[in-house]
């Protein structure tokens, strides 16, 4: 089961028959390397900031003077407090030294990448050991952790693909974090509304958030007085928009063409938080900027999104009326595929639909053009569009075909498109346990299907 879910995860990167982790390898790996160079450079700058004043980090001399306030979390519980100053100095200087090494040798030695991660990990552990965990550097630190798993050599195609996998892993972690955060904020609304408390739907919700941080830190923020003096549902709406940007981050994971625009939206969200509610997440902004705004998988200028994704989607909606011809490729030796054909034969089949076995020469041609499909064990739908073939696989293919036949499935298909990983996982889990039949003993497709069968 775990193997199947892992397979689904990686195969979800196949868009229109091509995985965005396996094509343009040289160019994308080159871009990834540049991004990682910059990321290690920013880590170095961060480690220097540890000694700066003012900085977002606690002042170094303040840490040295605070042995009495030290309430160690698990990762620094071993520090001998009797040698407090020496320990603190070692942690601070290690972070700086390892970050210098990281800028120079990150691509040559895994040991150096481990050292950079550990040095930052211990530093953040240290400053989180005074009663409150410091969250602002979490994503940066976890990205450094995943970068440990980059290959040391980068000449082969396999190594280049590894680079892209690690970058994609970081993007997934970042986007899922935002999604989870957004999910719990909507849960918070429900919980507070049911309890009869003020929630984000209340006109003074932003003012409440703002005054909480303002009260806790005795600070005023850029829009503090404006928000406090003007209680309005507009602020509530802005909060909800922010929550939606977080929540829909899950939709972006397997949509590389949206990485850049979503990176920009998330950075805008943090800017809005800083101006209104206060917390400064600039380390998070840097991580989002490097791995999403400059995503190696996003193609073209950021504004090209309007011509590639949004318009493509509207074209797709129009395409439903346009009735492009499409071919459903199914495994002739699979009982599940045959049952699917029996099921759809109960409906009036669209005139533009054709059906073909994957054991056919026609499908071999599709495979030749899209080699990533070779490992995909699924019904495959190839739609002929003016701009070229458009390929759907797994649950996306099945639901798209069903949505063509009955409106009930159109709604399900819409829901599936928001988070395709879930539907595709269910598809793969069922497919992994399906029954294969003898090639010489395949069920005969129903009559309605035989009419649209092609070789």
């Amino acid at each position, binding site marked *: 089961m775990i193997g199947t*879910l*892992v397979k689904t*995860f*990686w195969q979800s990167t196949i868009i229109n028959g091509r*995985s965005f*982790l*396996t094509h343009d390898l040289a160019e994308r790996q080159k871009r990834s390397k540049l991004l990682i160079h910059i990321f290690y450079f920013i880590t170095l700058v961060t480690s220097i900031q540890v000694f700066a004043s003012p900085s977002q980090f606690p*002042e170094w001399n*303040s840490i040295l003077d*605070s042995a*009495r*306030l*030290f*309430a160690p979390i*698990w*990762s620094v519980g071993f520090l001998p407090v009797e040698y407090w100053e020496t320990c603190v100095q070692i942690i601070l200087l290690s972070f700086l030294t390892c970050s210098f090494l990281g800028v120079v040798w990150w691509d040559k030695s895994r040991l150096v990448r481990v050292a950079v991660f550990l040095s930052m*990990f211990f530093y953040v552990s240290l*400053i989180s050991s*005074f*009663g*409150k965990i410091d*969250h602002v550097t*979490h994503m940066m*630190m*976890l990205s450094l952790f*995943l970068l440990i*798993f980059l290959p040391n050599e980068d000449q082969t195609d*396999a190594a280049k*693909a*590894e680079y892209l*996998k*690690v970058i*994609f*892993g970081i993007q*997934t*972690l970042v986007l*899922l*974090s935002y999604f*989870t*955060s957004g999910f*719990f904020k909507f849960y*918070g609304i429900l*919980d*507070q509304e049911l309890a009869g*408390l*003020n*929630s984000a739907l*209340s006109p*003074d919700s932003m003012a*409440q*958030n703002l*005054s*909480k941080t*303002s*009260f806790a*830190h*005795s600070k005023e923020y850029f829009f*503090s007085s404006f928000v*406090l003096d003007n209680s309005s549902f507009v602020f509530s709406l802005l909060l909800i928009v922010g929550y939606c940007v977080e929540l829909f981050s899950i939709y972006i994971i397997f949509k590389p063409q949206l990485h850049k625009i979503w990176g920009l939206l998330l950075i805008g969200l943090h800017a809005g938080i800083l101006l209104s509610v206060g917390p400064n997440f600039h380390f998070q902004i840097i991580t989002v900027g490097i791995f999403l705004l400059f995503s190696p998988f996003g193609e073209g200028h950021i504004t090209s999104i309007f011509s590639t994704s949004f318009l493509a989607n509207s074209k797709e909606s129009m395409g439903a009326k346009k009735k492009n011809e499409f071919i459903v490729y199914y495994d002739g030796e699979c009982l599940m595929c045959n049952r699917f054909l029996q099921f759809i034969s109960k409906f009036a089949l669209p005139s533009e639909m054709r059906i073909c076995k994957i054991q056919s020469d026609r499908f071999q041609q599709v495979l030749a053009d899209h080699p990533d499909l070779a*490992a995909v064990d699924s019904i495959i739908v190839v739609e002929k569009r003016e701009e070229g073939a458009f390929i759907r696989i797994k649950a996306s293919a099945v639901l798209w075909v069903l949505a063509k036949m009955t409106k009930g499935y159109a709604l399900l298909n819409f829901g599936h498109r928001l988070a395709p990983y879930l539907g595709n996982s269910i598809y793969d889990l069922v497919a992994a346990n399906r029954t294969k039949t003898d090639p010489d003993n395949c069920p005969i497709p129903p009559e309605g299907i035989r009419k649209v069968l092609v070789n």
Partner: protein
Amino acid sequence: MNKNFTYYFIPAFILLYFVIAALPIVGILKGEFFPFFSFKLYSKIPNDFSAYDLLIYRGDGEEKFLLHQNSHLDALRRKGFKRQVNLLGSQFEKTNSLGSVDYSEFVSMGDSVFLVKLSGDYIQAVKHDDYQMTVLKKLK
């Protein structure tokens, strides 16, 4: 795609990250487990508040709180003091005594030091400095 270490490790790590982050949410862990962010934090809009603080009087007539409106505190001390004051306050409200909690550092901060509880509405507190203060115990 090559089925090497990262093929399995990256999705497994991401899954593990969210499972561990969810442990405090479902109540298996008491608090947040570093470095796994508990996503339920900051998910609700604050309503009324109550917070422990220390009210410090000095001989020169100066009266100030240790935490509230004290802009001279750096972030580290604010966190550390807040933790200690919360320990004092919760210990006192539970047992009506301060037990073994060490507060000697605070006693030296002024001529008279009171453990207090501030409560009210955040907006009113910030806009009009309007909140209720209850003295829990005189520390010095």
